[in-house]
């Protein structure tokens, strides 16, 4: 039995890195400290894809890595417009090969941000992002706002490690010295803990942000008695809490990124933070979902200039979410092949998009079987990053942390699978004398 410390969790955007494990015979037998229940379940492992496989007559036939990789390369090489999608549950080293593959193919590369915090990225395009690392929040914040987010259930360690419940340099007393505001359409578990719960009407976040901004800029006179289901008195109360705080931190989640004005909600949330900064120190941060969705945005940006929804068909990057984003591309039937890596559109995409995905050849690279496996034509199992493979990831606040390799495996890491597909494609091109 060996105890392994400082293990980094490869589940959600919190990327907790103080986990202690017990390992015996190349198996994790116990999670001793640090992980939430969901993280613990991932570390202890679940059903894997056993072998590479190719679909024939509707059935998956097990095959060698070589055969599956060759088949995958053939599909992509023949394609006029392929979609390389996913990426948020693998490491940056794999992302880099992904960008190179995209460029080589003239394909479209998109990541799961486009169905979660893509709207936040679009908002950053328009107004930037006044933010900070999570340790800043822990040490300084005396007012926490969760807007359209329910960390008590979705990011179980978030409040404890970084925000409302945590203790830091100027926040020695933990939540005793802090206030929390929760804005949501229903009284969530998180909302029950709040000092002030602002119950907002579904899809009305945009106008509520504008009203708060007008108040913070000294124009409460023009704000009507009720905005988006929120009484004006409560808006004034929240604005006052902001003004009286020393450091206000807003975290927001999917409850505000995908309703009503969608990405423009986030533009307005950021504008609200800018207005708050006239009175206090104000920062804002999206609660990112997958552990390395921030990382794929980072890698794509330094390598192509753009964070997601990138079309390389002309040999350079063209970026236009809403056009090149995976769901739109599939909904419109714009692409003729797809490679899905480290994600599961089968479970998360709208039905119309899935219909097209089921029609075209699909390659799946993943450690685990999921609904996408049901229709994938080539299935390539991968090592689990953070357990069987190491590599860099970016936490939700863009702090880079290196995942550790805990166990040995015969499964190939994503990076190597992708590199072999790329090599195979280049060989095909050479053979054809292009």
């Amino acid at each position, binding site marked *: 039995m060996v105890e392994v410390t400082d293990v980094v969790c490869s589940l959600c955007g919190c990327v907790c890195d103080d986990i202690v494990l017990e390992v015996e015979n190349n198996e994790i037998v116990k999670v001793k400290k640090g992980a939430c229940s969901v993280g613990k379940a991932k570390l202890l492992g679940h059903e894997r894809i056993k072998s590479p496989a190719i679909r024939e007559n509707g059935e998956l036939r097990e095959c060698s890595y070589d055969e599956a990789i060759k088949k995958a390369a053939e599909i992509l090489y023949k394609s006029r417009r392929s979609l390389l999608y996913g990426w948020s549950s693998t490491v940056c080293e794999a992302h880099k090969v992904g960008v190179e593959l995209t460029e080589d193919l*003239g394909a479209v590369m998109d990541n799961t941000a486009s169905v979660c915090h893509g709207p936040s990225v679009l908002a950053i395009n328009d107004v930037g992002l006044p933010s900070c690392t999570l340790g800043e929040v822990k040490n300084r914040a005396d007012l926490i706002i969760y807007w359209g987010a329910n960390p008590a259930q979705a990011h179980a360690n978030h409040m404890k490690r970084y925000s409302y419940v945590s203790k830091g340099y100027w926040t020695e007393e933990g939540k005793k010295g802090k206030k929390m505001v929760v804005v949501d359409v229903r009284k969530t578990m998180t909302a029950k803990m709040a000092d002030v719960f602002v119950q907002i009407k579904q899809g009305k976040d945009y106008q509520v942000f504008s009203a708060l901004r007008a108040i913070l800029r000294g124009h409460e006179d023009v704000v009507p008695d009720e905005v988006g289901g929120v009484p004006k008195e409560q808006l004034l109360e929240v604005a006052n809490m902001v003004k009286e705080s020393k450091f206000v931190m807003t975290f927001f989640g999917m409850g505000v990124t995908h309703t009503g004005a969608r990405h423009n909600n986030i533009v307005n949330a950021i504008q609200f933070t800018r207005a708050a900064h006239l009175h206090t120190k104000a920062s804002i941060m999206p609660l990112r979902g997958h552990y390395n969705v921030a990382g794929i945005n980072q890698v794509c940006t330094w390598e192509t200039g753009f964070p997601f929804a990138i079309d390389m*068909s002309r040999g350079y990057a063209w970026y236009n979410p809403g056009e090149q984003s995976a769901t739109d591309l599939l909904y419109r039937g714009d692409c003729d092949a797809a490679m899905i890596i480290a994600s599961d559109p089968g479970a998360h995409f709208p039905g119309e998009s899935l219909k097209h995905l089921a029609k075209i050849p699909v390659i799946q690279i993943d450690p685990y079987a999921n609904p996408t496996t049901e229709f994938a034509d080539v299935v390539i199992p991968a090592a689990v990053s953070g357990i069987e493979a190491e590599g860099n990831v970016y936490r939700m606040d863009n702090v880079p942390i290196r995942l550790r390799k805990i166990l040995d495996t015969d499964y190939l890491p994503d990076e190597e699978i992708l590199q072999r597909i790329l090599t195979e494609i280049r060989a095909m091109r050479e053979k054809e004398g292009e």
Partner: protein
Amino acid sequence: MQTITLKLKDAAMSGIAQVPVEVDALTPDKLFGKSEAELKAVKVWWGNKQEAAGDLFDVSVAGDAGSGDEVKIVFEGDLTRVKRIGDGMKSGEIEARGDVDMHCGAMMEGGKIVVKGNANCWAGREMRGGELVIEGDAEDNLCAMYRGEDKGMTGGKVMVNGNAGECVGQYMAGGEILIKGNVDRLAGLSMSGGKITIGGDAELFGPDMIGGEIVVKGKVLEMMPSFRPDGTESIEGVEYKKYLGDLAMGEKKAKGTLYAR
């Protein structure tokens, strides 16, 4: 006058996927002076490859032109996956017979485009001049900016006979948009100049406006909570309430004007 008719071949859209054809290389100014053979050889992006225009379109040419102004291009066939019609166009005329895909008239500088159907998103994106007429509906981001830019449409004239989607004229800095029907939310978002007239209904228009004007002739479904009423004004004999804002941007910047009934 010269008329170039480009009819998209059915084969282009008959595969397992409808990979869009991008026709920014096929504008009157770019095609002016080309023989039929040269014209058919012009390279057009189709997915990750470039194809000869003649392989994707049935091409016919009638008449002669003395300049780009005298060239008219007629697009026919299924245009729902034909993107960037008239993108960057400087002169002449384009007629698109049917519903067109994204970026129709984007970056347009001069000439005229008539769409005899609906236009997908980003029609007239960053338009600088010329005229764009959409006889059907326009989807989202009509005359908006490119991602991250702080200017959308800066000049020219756009008319939509039907309805338009979200964010009409986002970051608009100049020019004129006339929508005869209704618009979705956030028309004139972050607008700094120019004029948007909406014949039908609108909601949450003019947020973050720092200049320009928006006139809504139909019903106001929901007003932004951060504008200041400023009396009434008569436009074409009809009395409108006037509002100034957006005060969410602060007093100094709130130089936009809304007119609504």
